[in-house]
């Protein structure tokens, strides 16, 4: 039925009488949400490309240098929501110099004329200045949602302009940015008649905000679902906020330690008791074990508990956990130690994701968790499929046991904090550990390796990790062969980050065919030379020019030698 009419519709949108299939197609495609699926859809045929082009309202750009804003707006005229990622992930760890790039301003200028109805902007690792925020606030009258994750270049003054001028704001999400904190006055800039806020996250700003302004804001924003306060908010203030907004589904508490009177504690407990809609809880700075029990009633429906800023000890942690039977995601500090992780294993049968962060993120420190905590979790939490585990020791046997208990890992990131550390019981390399991961976990998409590793571990990865998309490597490998194995063996590899490994030009150039389908390659402090880079650039003209095409995303290759970065 559709084929005859399809031929007519190739005339395009210029026809006043829109052929029926176009609208139907666009309507149907509207249900395809994932950006990857939308990309695939657009490759099917010209009609589908066209339908996708006109109906797409949200665009995701994983590498801001892969396409210019001009080309973007030309292809997609009706965008309302943009997600942009900028700097390479290693910039989070101070491995990328300042002024590297990824500035949002040039994008905003193009958007201002092409997308005047822009509603949402979500940025990760971009440079955003206060001037850009001001430009944003004045250029898009319908602007609703701003999320800044791990960005830098702006201050609280920029937030003040957003608060002042974005009359339709529903979301302000400021997460772990390099922000210049000039004070908490920005929060008081929301006008008195402003009440549309649904999501407010200022947890990572340190300055004290006017509690009065905050309380009034929370009171009049009846649709507020997410509130993540910063550590300047006290327990007593938290109680007052909760009683204004019992409908919250995500809460980030402020500081969780204050000398409360008996009466105040009772009120706090009562407030939490009325907040049974919470599915996410975070914050809890300086959590005092005295007051944790006040939380218990609010944990009954929790699926995500983020304790990564609360230095809990194993005992109080073990008492808290049984109150969270539905927990699926858990982030903790390693102050809970192996004993705390044993409690996770016994109290959280539905757990799917566990992240253990180090309280003391240095090489050669002490304390924290070991392989036995990891094994204990895996015994009780068979559904575990995502882990980020910072530890100071690990064994091949333990990792093998873990993946045997939990074969469905999609994201396996273990960081043995002392570089090149072998199996601490056998003193052998950790090759077999990651070998068992890739052999057992066939769904593995993301892997971060650590410890003492030879080329053997990379042979395993190349041979078995057929679904691997992201690989992070540091202080590992013995020769070029390691990197070659990965590039040759992992067909779905998209992001490869390498630092301090003995991989040189041979390895780099062996991936020429692979790079076509990858998003980014990062290599720093390896044995690549300038000549190797030049050779690579010569062989990969598309990557060099940054010319987008329908079929591939231009690759970003970043190679750092002695601190000099070449893009």
């Amino acid at each position, binding site marked *: 039925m559709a084929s005859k009419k399809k031929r007519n519709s190739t005339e395009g949108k210029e026809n006043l009488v829109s052929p029926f299939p176009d609208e139907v197609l666009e309507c149907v495609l509207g249900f395809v949400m994932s950006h990857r699926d939308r990309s695939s859809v657009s490759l099917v045929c010209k009609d589908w490309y066209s339908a996708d082009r006109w109906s797409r309202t949200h665009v995701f750009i994983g590498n801001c240098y892969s396409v210019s804003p001009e080309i973007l707006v030309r292809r997609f005229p009706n965008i309302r929501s943009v997600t942009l990622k900028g700097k390479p992930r290693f910039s989070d760890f101070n491995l990328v110099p300042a002024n590297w790039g990824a500035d949002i301003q040039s994008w905003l200028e193009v958007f201002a004329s092409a997308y005047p109805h822009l509603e949402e902007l979500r940025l990760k690792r971009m440079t955003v200045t206060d001037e850009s925020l001001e430009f944003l606030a004045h250029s898009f009258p319908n602007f609703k949602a701003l999320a800044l994750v791990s960005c830098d270049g702006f201050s609280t003054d920029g937030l003040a302009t957003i608060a002042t001028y974005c009359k339709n704001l529903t979301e302000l999400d400021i997460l772990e940015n390099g922000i210049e904190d000039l004070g908490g006055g920005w929060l008081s800039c929301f006008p008195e008649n402003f009440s549309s806020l649904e999501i407010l996250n200022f947890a990572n700003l340190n300055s004290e905000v006017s509690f009065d302004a905050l309380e009034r804001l929370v009171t009049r924003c009846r649709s507020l679902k997410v509130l993540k306060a910063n550590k300047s908010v006290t327990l007593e203030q938290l109680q007052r906020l909760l009683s204004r907004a019992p409908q919250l589904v995500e809460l980030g508490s402020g500081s969780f330690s204050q000398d409360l009177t008996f009466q105040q504690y009772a009120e706090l407990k009562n407030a939490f008791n009325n907040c049974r809609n919470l599915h996410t809880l975070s914050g809890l700075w300086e959590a005092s074990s005295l007051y944790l029990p006040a939380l218990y009633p609010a944990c009954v429906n929790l699926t995500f508990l983020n304790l990564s800023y609360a230095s809990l000890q194993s005992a109080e942690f073990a008492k808290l956990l049984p109150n969270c039977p539905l927990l699926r995601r858990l982030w903790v500090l390693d102050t809970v130690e192996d004993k705390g992780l044993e409690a996770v294993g016994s109290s959280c049968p539905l757990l799917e994701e566990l992240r253990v*962060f180090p309280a003391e993120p240095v*090489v*050669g420190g002490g304390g924290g968790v070991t392989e036995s905590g990891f094994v204990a979790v895996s015994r009780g939490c068979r559904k575990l499929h995502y882990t980020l585990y910072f530890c100071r020791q690990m064994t091949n046997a333990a990792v093998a046991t873990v993946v045997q208990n939990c074969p469905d890992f999609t994201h396996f990131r273990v960081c043995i904090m002392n570089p*090149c*550390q072998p199996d601490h019981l056998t003193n052998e390399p950790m090759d077999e550990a990651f070998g068992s991961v890739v052999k057992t976990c066939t769904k593995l998409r993301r892997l971060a390796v650590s410890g003492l590793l030879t080329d053997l571990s990379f042979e395993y990865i190349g041979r078995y990790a057929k679904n691997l998309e992201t690989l992070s490597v540091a*202080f590992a490998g013995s020769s070029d062969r390691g990197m070659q194995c990965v590039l040759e063996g992992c067909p779905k590899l998209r992001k490869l980050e390498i630092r*301090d490994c*003995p991989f040189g030009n041979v390895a780099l150039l062996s991936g020429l065919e692979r790079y076509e389908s990858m998003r980014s390659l990062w290599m720093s402090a390896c*044995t690549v030379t300038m000549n190797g880079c030049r050779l690579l650039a010569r062989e990969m003209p598309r990557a060099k020019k940054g010319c987008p095409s329908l079929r591939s995303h231009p690759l970003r290759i970043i190679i750092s030698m002695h601190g000099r970065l070449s893009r």
Partner: protein
Amino acid sequence: MESTVTYKSDLNLKATELRLGLPGADDSDNEKPTTPVAVRNNKRPFSELSDESKSVSDAKDGDRETAPVAKVQVVGWPPIRSYRKNSFQSKKIETEGAGIYVKVSMDGAPYLRKIDLKLYKGYPELLKALEEMFKFTIGEYSEREGYNGSEYEPTYEDKDGDWMLVGDVPWDMFISSCKRLRIMKGSEARGLDCA
């Protein structure tokens, strides 16, 4: 850069090299101090890294038996977001800098003073500060005889309420147990020594 170490064949030798302790020792392969050495043997560390680990390994050669785990600064490692790293560092500084303020009285002085014990790294600095604050001199400390050469002796009240002579216990123990200081004068001070 030629230092590509092949671990496959050399592993066992390397392992013993990495160990802390006398050559020929079998066990204790899980001594943490192996780590900085391993870092030094690694392929191509950052220059900061090799500098750090060099000084660390020097220290280790000095006292092999009891070297504590040395903290090494490696740029961008472990891979924790700067925001998170900074929030814990500032936390440490906060708790470390919370200040231990204690009252200091001096026999004969009309009013008391307060000092922050956290500001000083050890007894010599503290005593010097007290000398300057109250314009007097403290004598030479010796374990057997206390302070000789002056009529003043620095004392403190500890957690148990006892008056102790400043200087007898290790510094860290002192600052955690000291509740107030008193600079005793004359015969009363002598009494402490004999006790």
